[in-house]
């Protein structure tokens, strides 16, 4: 019985080997990880200021859109690279 247990331990020790190839999750660029800016509020009754705030908000929207597109490109590219390793 002792011999059998010993033999089992020896043979089963082969099962404890871990997979040696480690893959790291790709790090996204810092630029993409920055939050989008909050929209600006209007603080005066001037039409000029209204126009400027609207322009500013459009800018912020487009800058945020660029980041979202960046994430989409990043995901597409990284997935393609990840899937290419087999």
């Amino acid at each position, binding site marked *: 019985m002792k011999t059998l247990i010993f033999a089992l331990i020896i043979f089963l020790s082969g099962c404890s080997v871990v997979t*040696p190839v480690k893959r790291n999750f790709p790090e996204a660029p810092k*630029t993409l990880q920055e939050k989008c800016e909050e929209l600006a509020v209007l603080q005066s*009754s001037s039409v000029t200021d209204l126009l400027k705030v609207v*322009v500013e908000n*459009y800018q912020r929207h487009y800058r945020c859109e660029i980041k979202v597109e960046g994430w989409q490109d*990043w995901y597409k*590219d990284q997935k393609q*690279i990840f899937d290419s*390793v087999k």
Partner: protein
Amino acid sequence: MWLLAFLPDWIFYAIFIFGLGLFVATIVLKFIPIIYMKRIPLQFASIAFISIGAFMSGMATNEMIWQMRVKELEAKVAQAEAEAAKKNVEIVEKIVYKDRVVKEKGEEIVKYIDKIVVEKEEVVKFVENCPLPKEFIDAHNQAVKINKK
């Protein structure tokens, strides 16, 4: 298997060849009395050596094949990581460029606004005489905060 990590591969092949040699010896050298007398236990022992040697040699070969595959995969992973880093740089460059374009275009529009509010007479008059009602400002600011909790 851990044995493979400690013992060199040639030992397993040596055990196999030794077992095979012992088995052949029990048949060929049976005219020697001592071998003839002990041939049954010797044959059992040789079969044990052949089995262990064959099993361990097979494992060693299998291990070698796996190690080769691991190295191949490690190379592919390293290449993929380098490619991923390169793509990251490309994406950042693209974002920085587009962001700069948006900023510059916005600044141009603001400059244009600043210019027309002092140069164009009808615009100057409109700006001076038509302040925005508070309700308009509040409505605008509420729209800004639509997504706020």
